């Protein structure tokens, strides 16, 4: 048997690793050139990237920004590759505000957008002081007044009606939920009726803010307004529908199921046509319901049906024990929903809700088919049809895509932050 004993006489010093095992060389070897097929694919991929950039970059950086028509662009470029981005600078106001919104009033939607940031912040980031929600509550009325103008009595009446409804509901719902809800609705209608009368009486010839008709709204502003309004209305409606669908009362359950299944089975475009043409048949002959409002109602109904199904998935994913624990502690149905069930179900539903919200925001471009001039409507209509810019497709539609991408990517990033922030299970 060999001698197995061994004693080290001196300790080995530390050595640097081989050159191809550190830094960029190592990274390249493991990620790009680990095997021959991978190396070939890497080279091929680089070639494709080169082809794409070689086509796009000269077009992007060689573009013209200052001419006033497509033919002038062609003269400046003289056959060189380059985009005709002048259309964006020249028609910027039309792309953003539409072609009928009075130019001297642009500050009003701009201010509304800035205020939106303050109104949305406490809803999106719940670490902010809760008192800021008071501003969120009055924001819709301020925004309405800023964008549409007209007598200030209209938004004030709307606000007072809702405030009255809320106070009545608060007062009575603790003892009797149905009484509170019905009383609240009745209060709102009474206040609105009185308010409408007063507004008509006091309407002055020259209101503080010049009125702007809904028909005059347009451009990306219209997309943003529709998107923000419909998302914020369809989430609460979706929650109500999802809970209604779970109800043990056959009437409520039936109404919710029929509503959801019907709306989901119909294309949005048909609903929009109903909004623009047919809805008038359902109102009294002299009643004029604003087109913007009709479209908001239809898009909201449409997306709330989808959100309801997403939230139903979240509710179904909760263990039955959560309901039982809430029951065993004596929480009643509204309390159990508010504190236990919905916070968890909504957290589970975030990716799905964001999916619907992003889809809804992009679907607002469909209003262009009922001749509302949103961003896409502006591009397809007044801009591309004009003599100066007939034929500038890539630049315009690329710009529209960029605007939508920025907003949708922002929503997606926010939702991921929200999911991380709400993660308490520490798995």
């Amino acid at each position, binding site marked *: 048997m060999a001698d197995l004993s061994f004693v080290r006489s001196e300790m080995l010093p530390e050595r640097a690793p081989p050159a191809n095992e550190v830094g960029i060389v190592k990274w390249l070897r493991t990620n790009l050139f680990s095997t021959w097929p991978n190396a070939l694919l890497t080279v091929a991929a680089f070639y494709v990237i080169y082809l794409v950039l070689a086509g796009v970059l000269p077009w992007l950086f060689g573009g013209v920004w200052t001419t006033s028509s497509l033919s002038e662009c062609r003269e400046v470029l003289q056959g060189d590759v380059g985009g005709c981005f002048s259309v964006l600078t020249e028609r910027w106001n039309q792309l953003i505000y539409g072609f009928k919104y009075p130019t001297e009033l642009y500050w009003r939607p701009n201010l509304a957008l800035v205020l939106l940031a303050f109104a949305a912040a406490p809803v999106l980031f719940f670490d902010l002081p809760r008192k800021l929600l008071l501003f969120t509550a009055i924001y819709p009325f301020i925004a309405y007044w800023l964008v549409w103008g007209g007598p200030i009595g209209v938004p004030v009446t709307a606000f007072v009606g809702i405030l009255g409804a809320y106070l009545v509901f608060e007062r009575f719902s603790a003892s009797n939920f149905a009484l509170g809800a019905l009383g609240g609705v009745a209060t709102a209608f009474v206040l609105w009726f009185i308010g409408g009368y007063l507004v008509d009486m006091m309407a002055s010839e020259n209101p503080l803010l010049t009125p702007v008709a809904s028909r005059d709204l347009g451009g990306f502003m219209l997309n943003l307004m529709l998107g923000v309004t419909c998302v914020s209305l369809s989430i609460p409606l979706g929650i109500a529908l999802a809970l209604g669908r779970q109800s043990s009362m056959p009437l409520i359950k039936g109404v919710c199921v029929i509503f959801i299944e019907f709306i989901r089975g119909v294309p949005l475009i048909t609903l929009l046509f109903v909004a623009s043409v047919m809805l008038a048949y359902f109102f009294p002959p002299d009643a004029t319901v604003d087109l913007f409002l009709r479209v908001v109602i239809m898009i909201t109904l449409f997306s709330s049906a989808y959100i309801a199904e997403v939230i139903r998935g979240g509710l179904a994913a909760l263990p039955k*024990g959560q309901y039982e*624990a809430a*029951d065993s502690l*004596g*929480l009643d149905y509204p309390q159990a929903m508010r504190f236990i069930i919905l916070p968890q179900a909504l957290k589970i539903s975030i990716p799905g809700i964001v999916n619907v919200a992003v889809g809804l925001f992009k679907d607002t471009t469909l209003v262009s088919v009922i001749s509302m001039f949103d961003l896409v409507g502006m591009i397809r209509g007044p801009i591309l049809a004009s003599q100066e810019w007939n034929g500038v497709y890539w630049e315009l539609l690329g710009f529209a895509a960029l605007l939508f991408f920025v907003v949708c990517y922002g929503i997606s990033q926010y939702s991921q932050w929200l999911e991380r922030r709400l993660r*308490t299970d520490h798995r």
Partner: protein
Amino acid sequence: MSSITLDHHADRSKMAVSDEVAIEIRNMNKWYGSFHVLRDIDLTVYQGERIVIAGPSGSGKSTLIRCINRLEEHQEGQIIVDGTELTSDLKNVDKVRSEVGMVFQHFNLFPHLTILENCTLAPIWVRKEPKKEAEERAMHFLEKVKIPEQAHKYPGMLSGGQQQRVAIARSLCMMPRIMLFDEPTSALDPEMIKEVLETMVELAEEGMTMLCVTHEMGFAKEVANRVIFMDAGQIVEQNEPEEFFNNPQSERTKLFLSQIL
């Protein structure tokens, strides 16, 4: 079947049973669809009693105690808890639930709330207590179950035994007169079973009326004043623990005990 020995021997002298009735169940029947799960249950529980309900799985023991706070509805007979009869009247149901605490096999803590919030939610919204008062009492009970330092963590960060002790504290915060335990230790590792059982023994020593569905026969011998054996939806035998374990009468009970002891 695990048999955990408790370090702390229960002091039975503190566990007094009064002759005031806490729960009265008369001729109660329940069906799941056409399956007759509880049959002619008659049971009177006095204030301060510690009752262990044993029996094979599917015998209806969990269903029985879940009927007592109406997590399950019975179809025939009467259940009267602390003078309030359980009917479809939601006011009565809420009144009973605010007086009866329940601890579940799988804890059922609210994972999105901290331990402290788990304990204060119901007192604040159901009992309408001021937040500060509710928090003070929650800390008091968390100290009693020996985990006050976890108050600001989330349930997911605690071990199973700790979670179950939080669940007990959460129920106690509602100041219940009766506590129901639905297999509180059967989802736990042996060493955690012990810490939960010790908490339950302390609770018993304070005179709490307790109904426990459990397989921990050591706990039954130590704490219970009555053991109820159920099979096939009916009460087959009930007796004081000593008699029940040493001198079972029914064949079914004898078979069950021979299998688990």
